[in-house]
């Protein structure tokens, strides 16, 4: 059993008591809600006549259903409008802060909480959304929950939970030019599989992780869930503290030093014991693209689509299903696969550094979006949008044929007007390539880094971004 890891320390600090079942009643420091998984939870509270005892510890925004083009109300989609009205009413009635479009603070829930300094090291964070793992980048224990558990947190600020095992994912060395945090996590998923992390929290550590920016760490932790791990985290360090300092809700004045001292204490110490350790070398990681229907179906851009025999036999049926659904064959090169749609955005890769890198690649390439491709870029939050426009990134995108949209989840899960049509293939900076995920029951998704999406949009096909970024001097940190 693990001990003295950040996970163990944060768990113990938040354990309220043991429940009769043997589960732990765990205090939740930050509860985030959005319009999709919360209305039923509020309905259950009303049914039972329950109140919200810690309304200041829940923060709401709207992201999944928000259109990224015309945001005027009422929304054209009456079901979406009904959900908006529901969260507005619920937040008003229960005294919860809601960041609405136009406030400057709205955006994808996993982007706005960190950028406002709401997510802090050593916290427990819960949200009715599986990508809550993102917040682990700060050294928080953050996990996705379902709607009944959203109800539990609203009514008690706690959850009934079983402790997870802790696996350390040690990554050492320097990422090569054109290789990003997204490639790192797709590489890890490929080797540990989509179910390898069930029952675990993933601690990401090592010199490669230490060198990542906070935004890159968020990309890595965001996709821990795609490996089956309910949470992923990075120990807080100077990079974390520098990111947080001065953010609206971060501690300030004399409280800052006390906070940093406490945050340092919750990190895994040299005496930490893990249930499992896996090691990777950054030099082994190539720009990675998924070819199949699960996020662990990734290959290096220079590789071919793997034969089913390279998987364990219990996976063969899934692999066959993936070849058929994607209309790709074993032995075929992934580079050169034609795309119809290019999407940059989402809680995985919709942050300022992602957009900067996309703009850099587009400028280095110099071309415009291929005629056969629809390409659009969706900032993860209103704050990201404002910052990107202040740098002129939007002008770069539009000049090269990309559409520039408003903040939201957009085509990551297509609960809004942004959807694939028919059997279209998308190059997507999002997190899931499940069948039908991007809005068309037959639509196909190739996951990759925002830089790789940008070059795919320009070339009309999967292309190694390193061919655009040839000069090693052009490498900048994503």
């Amino acid at each position: 059993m693990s001990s003295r890891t950040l996970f163990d320390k944060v768990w113990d600090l938040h354990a309220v008591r043991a429940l009769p079942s043997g589960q732990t009643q765990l205090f939740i420091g930050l509860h985030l809600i959005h319009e999709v998984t919360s209305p039923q939870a509020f309905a259950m509270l009303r049914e039972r006549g329950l109140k919200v005892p810690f309304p200041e510890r829940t923060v709401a925004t709207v992201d999944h259903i928000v259109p990224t083009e015309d945001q005027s109300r009422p929304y054209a989609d009456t079901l979406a409008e009904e959900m908006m009205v529901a969260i507005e009413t619920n937040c008003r009635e229960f005294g919860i802060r809601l960041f609405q479009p136009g406030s400057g603070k709205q955006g994808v829930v996993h982007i706005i909480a960190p950028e406002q300094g709401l997510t802090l090291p050593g916290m427990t964070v819960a949200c009715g959304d599986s990508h809550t793992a993102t917040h682990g980048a700060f050294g928080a224990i953050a996990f996705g929950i379902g709607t009944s558990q959203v109800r539990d947190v609203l009514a008690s600020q706690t959850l009934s939970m079983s402790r997870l095992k802790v696996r350390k994912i040690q990554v050492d060395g320097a990422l090569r030019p054109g290789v990003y945090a997204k490639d790192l996590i797709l590489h890890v998923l490929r080797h540990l599989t989509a179910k390898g992390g069930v029952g675990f929290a993933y601690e990401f550590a090592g010199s490669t992780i230490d060198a990542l920016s906070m935004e890159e760490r968020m990309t890595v932790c965001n996709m821990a869930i795609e490996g089956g791990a309910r949470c992923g985290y990075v120990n807080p360090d100077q990079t974390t503290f520098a990111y947080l300092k001065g953010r609206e809700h971060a501690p300030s004045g004399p409280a800052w030093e006390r906070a940093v001292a406490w945050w340092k204490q919750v990190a895994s110490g040299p005496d930490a014991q893990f249930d499992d350790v896996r090691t990777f070398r950054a030099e082994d990681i190539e720009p990675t693209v998924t070819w199949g229907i699960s996020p662990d179906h990734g290959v290096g851009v220079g590789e071919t689509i793997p034969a089913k025999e390279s998987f364990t036999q219990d996976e063969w049926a899934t692999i066959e299903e993936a070849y058929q659904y994607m209309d790709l064959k074993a032995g075929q090169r992934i580079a050169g696969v034609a795309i119809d749609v290019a999407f940059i955005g989402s809680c995985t890769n919709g942050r300022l550094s992602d957009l900067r890198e996309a703009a850099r690649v587009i400028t280095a390439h110099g071309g415009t979006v291929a005629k056969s491709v629809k390409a659009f870029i969706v900032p993860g939050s209103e704050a990201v949008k404002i910052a990107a426009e202040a740098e002129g990134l939007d002008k770069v995108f539009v000049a090269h044929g990309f559409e520039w949209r408003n903040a939201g989840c957009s085509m990551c899960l297509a609960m809004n007007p942004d959807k694939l049509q028919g059997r279209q293939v998308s190059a997507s900076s999002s997190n899931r390539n499940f069948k039908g995920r991007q809005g068309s029951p037959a639509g196909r998704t190739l996951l990759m880094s925002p830089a790789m999406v940008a070059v795919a949009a320009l070339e009309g096909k999967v292309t190694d971004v390193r061919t655009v970024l040839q000069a090693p001097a052009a490498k900048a940190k994503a």
Partner: protein
Amino acid sequence: MSSVVSLVSGRALPLRGNDIDTDRIIPARFLRCVTFDGLGQFAFEDDRKQLTAQSKTHPFDDRRFAGASVLVVNSNFGCGSSREHAPQAIAKWGIRGIVGVSFSEIFFGNCVAMGLPCLRVSAADAEALQGDIERDPAADVTLDLAKGEVRCGKRSVPATMAEGPRKQFLTGQWDALGQLVSGIDEVRAAAKKLPYVGGFA
């Protein structure tokens, strides 16, 4: 609100495949709703339509399995999105218990909170059970949480569930809300000890 769940028995439905994600169980467009009512008919909507278009039959459309209350799946069932809409759709379709090799963590937690038990069996046993049901769709499959086994005809296989949730089902405490709320004084005391709750004052 909770009641004891120790035995679930009924005709069963085999759904083969690893890594069946919650987007497939309930596509996102059906999440545009403010209640879970009516989700049952949309369970596996896109998978079903696609097979129908190929003149094939999805197990959820197969008349041999109509009225089934037990679902038998393979590994990592319910991976992906945290949407409780997925187990809600399955439950509202009529399923009262699930047997599989493994379940995604969040999906499993949602099922506990809904009183829908998910028992784990070995990969070989899951496939054997699926074969049994395909051969004899009228056979009853029984999930016995107290004994830790799943039975189908002459076959009886060991089945497990983490001890905490198993106890919650067996004692009728799978809906944790009552207990969580009853401990509110202890919750407030625990919160006071966390320096960030007081703003590191």
